[in-house]
């Protein structure tokens, strides 16, 4: 029986691969490799920083960030909410222990590693902040920068031991509050055009459009700021880094503390 199951499991992917492979090699996804990009891509690339036709531009030379937060900003907002909900689900599983410090009394690694990590952590946070704040100019943005920043607390837990993170100024409550505030910040940045121009604008409006005069600042001195893109990247960066910080903190509890969560199930709650 088990052997029969294995044969089915092996043959199914092989048949699927063959079925997809034949149309691909016959040219179903166009000429391989493609010489030109699609017309839609050309439109995006052209209008993102078209200083001669500002009716449709995003004031940012980074087409990916412009697509993510301007052309389809609402979609990215919902994506942030999905992320938010997943982390909430993760925390709900550990609801009995999330606020408590861990039981471990480790002293961390040797002094050499500690000093080197202290310097590296500063660098990690700086690189992350730079990725977030330059998201509208170079590849990068809120999520990528936030993920980079979240590496620092994980390193801290491993190298300096759990005590440093448990008794640091960034408590669970503060991290959750910062994350909620930045989600509200994203929502407010999206709704600000509507509020300021008394309903005469679009949600997630970045630059001035036909019939609506509201516009976020497109450039500071001679550097393109991408209008709302900078604010949205900043809030997303804070939200993502705090979310990962909490998630890693919860996942890296010691075995004993984590098992406290399961004791509750014996009493039926």
């Amino acid at each position: 029986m088990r052997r029969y199951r294995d044969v089915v499991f092996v043959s199914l992917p092989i048949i699927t691969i063959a079925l997809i492979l034949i149309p691909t090699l016959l040219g179903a996804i166009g000429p391989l490799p493609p010489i030109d990009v699609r017309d839609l891509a050309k439109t995006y690339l052209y209008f993102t920083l078209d200083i001669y036709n500002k009716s449709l531009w995003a004031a940012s030379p980074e087409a990916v960030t412009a697509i993510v937060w301007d052309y389809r900003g609402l979609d990215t907002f919902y994506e942030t909410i999905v992320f938010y909900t997943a982390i909430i689900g993760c925390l709900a599983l550990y609801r009995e222990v999330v606020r408590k410090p861990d039981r471990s009394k480790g002293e961390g690694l040797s002094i050499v590693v500690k000093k080197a990590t202290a310097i590296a952590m500063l660098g990690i946070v700086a690189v992350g902040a730079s990725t977030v704040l330059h998201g509208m100019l170079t590849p990068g943005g809120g999520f990528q920068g936030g993920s980079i920043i979240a590496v620092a607390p994980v390193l801290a837990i491993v190298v300096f031991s759990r005590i440093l993170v448990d008794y640091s100024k960034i408590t669970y409550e503060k991290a959750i509050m910062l994350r909620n505030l930045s989600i509200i910040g994203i929502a407010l940045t999206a709704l600000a055009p509507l509020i300021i121009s008394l309903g005469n604008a679009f949600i997630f409006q970045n630059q001035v459009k036909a019939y609506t005069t509201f516009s976020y600042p497109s450039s500071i001195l001679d550097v393109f700021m991408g209008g709302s893109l900078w604010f949205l990247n900043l809030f997303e960066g804070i939200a993502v880094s705090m979310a990962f910080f909490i998630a890693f903190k919860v996942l890296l509890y010691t075995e004993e503390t984590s098992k406290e969560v399961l004791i509750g199930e014996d009493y039926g709650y």
Partner: protein
Amino acid sequence: MDIKTIMFVATIVSLYINIGVCIYGVLSKPNLVKKFIALTILQDSINTFMILDGYRLWRAGLIQPPVLLNWSPTEEDLKQFMMRAVDPLPQALVLTAIVIGLAANVFLASVILHLYRHFGTVDVDIIGVLKRVAISEELS
């Protein structure tokens, strides 16, 4: 068929095979951690495939990278930029996919950890048996 085309087709074929192997891993392996690893590799393979969809052939004579070098670009600069740049849309879609995939991964990892702490194993077959035993004990 020149070498570039062969290499490109080989990349696509290897990604297909990767996706197939990962689906096999997710379906057939009883170990939840192995399933999880196969799932993450599956996600990354599909993301790579989507980025490959926006790729275009690097033509001879183009040595500049696809970035705008001029702060106030002229029409000619923009045209040159479009000549070099790849499709940004798949990259934006992949960014969304990575975020949502990561959220799902964090949740899955915590659920697997929870299951391990509850049942003492990550083998779904054994977990199924243990659950059946627990339910029959409760009913009797």
